[in-house]
């Protein structure tokens, strides 16, 4: 799973969000490192919808502009949980191996 896809799914994990909300949330989750542009965001949303990982939750008109809210589907939740577990296991393995060196460095 690409990082942008992973971050978009993470942004939707706590609840439904609209396009600009996802961009802002992804920037926050990644500590400002990933700033999605509109073309990339909608390319990803289109693919995720086609794969059944997200779905349209509702639409609102705010300041005469259309806001479409997206939410994770059960399949999307499952895929995100699997990916998060995989990344967590990888990170844990790296930290375990780094620990002796770090401990040595401190001592």
């Amino acid at each position: 799973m690409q990082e942008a896809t992973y971050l978009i799914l993470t942004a939707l994990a706590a609840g439904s969000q609209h396009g600009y909300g996802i961009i802002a949330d992804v920037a926050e989750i990644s500590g400002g490192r990933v700033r999605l542009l509109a073309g990339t965001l909608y390319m990803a949303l289109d693919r995720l919808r086609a794969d059944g990982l997200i779905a349209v939750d509702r639409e609102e008109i705010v300041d005469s502009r259309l806001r479409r809210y997206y939410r994770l589907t059960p399949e999307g939740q499952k895929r995100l949980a699997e990916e998060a577990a995989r990344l967590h296991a990888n990170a844990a393995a790296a930290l375990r191996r780094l620990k002796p060196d770090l401990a040595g460095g401190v001592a």
Partner: protein
Amino acid sequence: MSKPARLEREYRRLLVCYPRTYRRENEEEILAVLLACAQDGQRPGLAVVADLIKGAMRMRLRPAARTPRTVQAAVWLLCVGAAAQLAALVINVATIDSVESAAARRYPPWAAAAVHHVVTVRMVTNRVEEAIGIGVWLLLAWALARRRNLARFAVAAWFGLDCVDMFQAGRSAVVEAPLNVAVGTVIWLLALAASVLLFTWASNRYYRPKPGRALVVADLRH
């Protein structure tokens, strides 16, 4: 015209790159996001424009659902072909002087004017061919993604033309720069691979005319 209205018009103009059906469904939503991102009212930057064009191209070249992997791979190869053709064009423009001096070394000094003429003519025709080529690669990719059976045969014909071109380049008095020969070979291989993929069993089945159409023809005959 006010600043926000002008900005909206500029973004709408950019969104025209997207397929009409996609725009009908998503234009207002994407526009709202673009305007929200440009809160300081600044005109779209190069990165935003490039990103939108990339997104629009992906949408246009997106294969329909249940497209066999062979066809998806062929569409992808044709897009790579367009990029390789663009690379060939850039390399050719950059290496014209070295090609001319290499050609001049092979002939006596009194033939310099003729060599210059031959190299220039070949270089100009090649540039025109390459510029058209970029468009052809993209057009073929688009038609294949639209499930046009004729596009498969056009890809095969395009590969045939490339073979002729390679053969002619081998016999030409003008020796191309080595890098350009390499890119030319890559382009030839891409066309070969795409042609093979498009005539596999899975692709044949995908492009076979729908039985519904044959029935209509049969009905008309009665």
